[in-house]
């Protein structure tokens, strides 16, 4: 598999990152994550897979600055991430985060208006993002009039218009059916190629990770640590058709080898081990 290797410059970095949630009254603290080390290279597409509750979303939120790490350091473009989401990071969540009281167009324009962009620039960027996401004909519709996949595209468009350099996707297709997920995957790949942004995708779907990513981090059961980093070696110009390639099966097979035992642990199959 010949890879178009991404720029080797480190874009974001987690060093020895641990996250422990303090226990509520009478309960033990929950060690959710780490220690985790990760170097995200500029312009790469990195996916994180792992069993339910292993701390994947916690990792994303710590990297975004949405929650603090208990130990370790997080940097984005060489600067520490602490307290707030740094400029240049965009996040798309699993839940429908569209604003039901705004039209698709106004949803997409939300961040730009907040940041004081002039009307012409807002119009240019929003029209462009909606056209890119295939939402041009729905600009005046309200989110509730759209399907789940289209609403998620609205949220991506709202992120896209701010031209983030690091896009964090927290299981954005988790609530969608398999076919829509494949198509959405194609759209995310187009978006990634066009923007040149670094993308970190959190997903529980091994096929999704294998199809979209340059590298995939397989995480252990809680507390989540990286067990393996799989380099896919896909060319930058790729789409969902690669699911029929033999290498695709090899990648998902290797991921499953890593995760089977961990998934059993997370589901409480005590004493069982993966063969």
């Amino acid at each position, binding site marked *: 598999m010949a890879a178009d290797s991404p720029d080797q410059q480190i874009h974001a970095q987690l060093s020895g990152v641990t996250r422990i949630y303090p226990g509520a009254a009478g309960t033990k603290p929950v060690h959710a994550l780490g220690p985790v080390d990760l170097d995200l290279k500029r312009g790469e597409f990195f996916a994180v897979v792992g069993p339910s509750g292993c701390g994947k979303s916690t990792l994303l939120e710590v990297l975004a600055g949405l929650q603090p790490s208990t130990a370790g350091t997080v940097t984005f473009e060489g600067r520490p991430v602490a307290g707030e989401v740094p400029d240049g990071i965009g*996040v798309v969540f699993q839940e429908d985060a569209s604003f039901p009281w705004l039209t698709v167009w106004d949803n997409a324009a*939300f961040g730009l208006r907040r940041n004081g962009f002039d009307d012409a620039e807002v119009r240019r960027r929003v029209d462009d993002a909606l056209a890119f996401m295939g939402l041009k004909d729905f600009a005046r519709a309200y989110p*509730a009039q759209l399907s789940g996949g289209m609403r998620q595209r609205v949220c991506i468009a709202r992120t896209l218009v701010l031209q983030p350099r690091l896009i964090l996707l927290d299981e954005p297709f988790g609530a969608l059916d398999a076919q829509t997920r494949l198509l959405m995957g194609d759209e995310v790949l187009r978006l990634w190629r066009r923007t040149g942004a670094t993308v970190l995708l959190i997903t529980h779907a091994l096929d999704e990770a294998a199809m979209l990513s340059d590298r995939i981090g397989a995480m252990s059961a809680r507390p989540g640590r990286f067990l393996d980093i799989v380099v896919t070696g896909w060319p930058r110009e790729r789409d969902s058709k690669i699911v029929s390639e033999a290498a695709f099966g090899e990648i998902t097979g290797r991921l499953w080898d890593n995760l089977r035992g961990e998934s059993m642990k997370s589901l409480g199959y005590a004493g069982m081990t993966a063969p």
Partner: protein
Amino acid sequence: MSKVGWIRLAVVIVAVGLLEVCCRTGLINRKVVIPPTEMADALWQLLISGQFNDQIARTFGIVLAAIAISVVAGFAFGVAVHAMPRVRQALDPFFATYYAVPIFIFYPVMIVIFGLSAWPIVLMGVATAIVAMVIATLNGLDRIPRVLTKVARVHRMGTVSTALRLKLPAAAPHLFTGVKLVVSYAFIGVIASEFILAPAGLGRVIADAYSDFNNRSMYAMMLLLIIAATVVNMLLHMLDQSWAERRGIGKP
């Protein structure tokens, strides 16, 4: 108008027509109920004579004041209680059982404190309506998706900006339900208080007309209240419907 709207209108016309026929044919004693056309005629005559205009203005002014106070204070109190989970836990049973208490028993206390002014009536209206707004506010705030708070942080929005630009619009449908309930309860609280003890207002006019066997005035004022309450509720319903359609919830 939609098909459902036509059916609704037909139901009203048939009911009013039936009452008219029953009164005119003597099936219903005219000393008990006068025909709807006579009610309308009596109302028209009273309105053009201006005999009760000051009472009408007073009552609607009091209802408006009760609505405004209930909405503003109920919302503020709801927000404050929502921010203090332990206080809320302590108060929840009171909210749940509030309407089981006959609030009107406190009217004499209000008169002792505020005298025979409009204030006791306003406060009775508020006492009847405010808890509906508090409960609606708590419901609305409970139902704000948690992801919106994360979105706000991604957009580096402050507390006030998050509250005004994300949380308030997200909670708006529940808040509006509260407003609709407040309007209904305020009407009930004010008219009932006037009816029982107040020296003035539409409730008093209806009570006096009832005591004097003045059916024309009594039914005229009752018709006015029914029309006013229906029109206000229809307007609120239309507004609610238009917002619901925007949000894709559609017509019921």
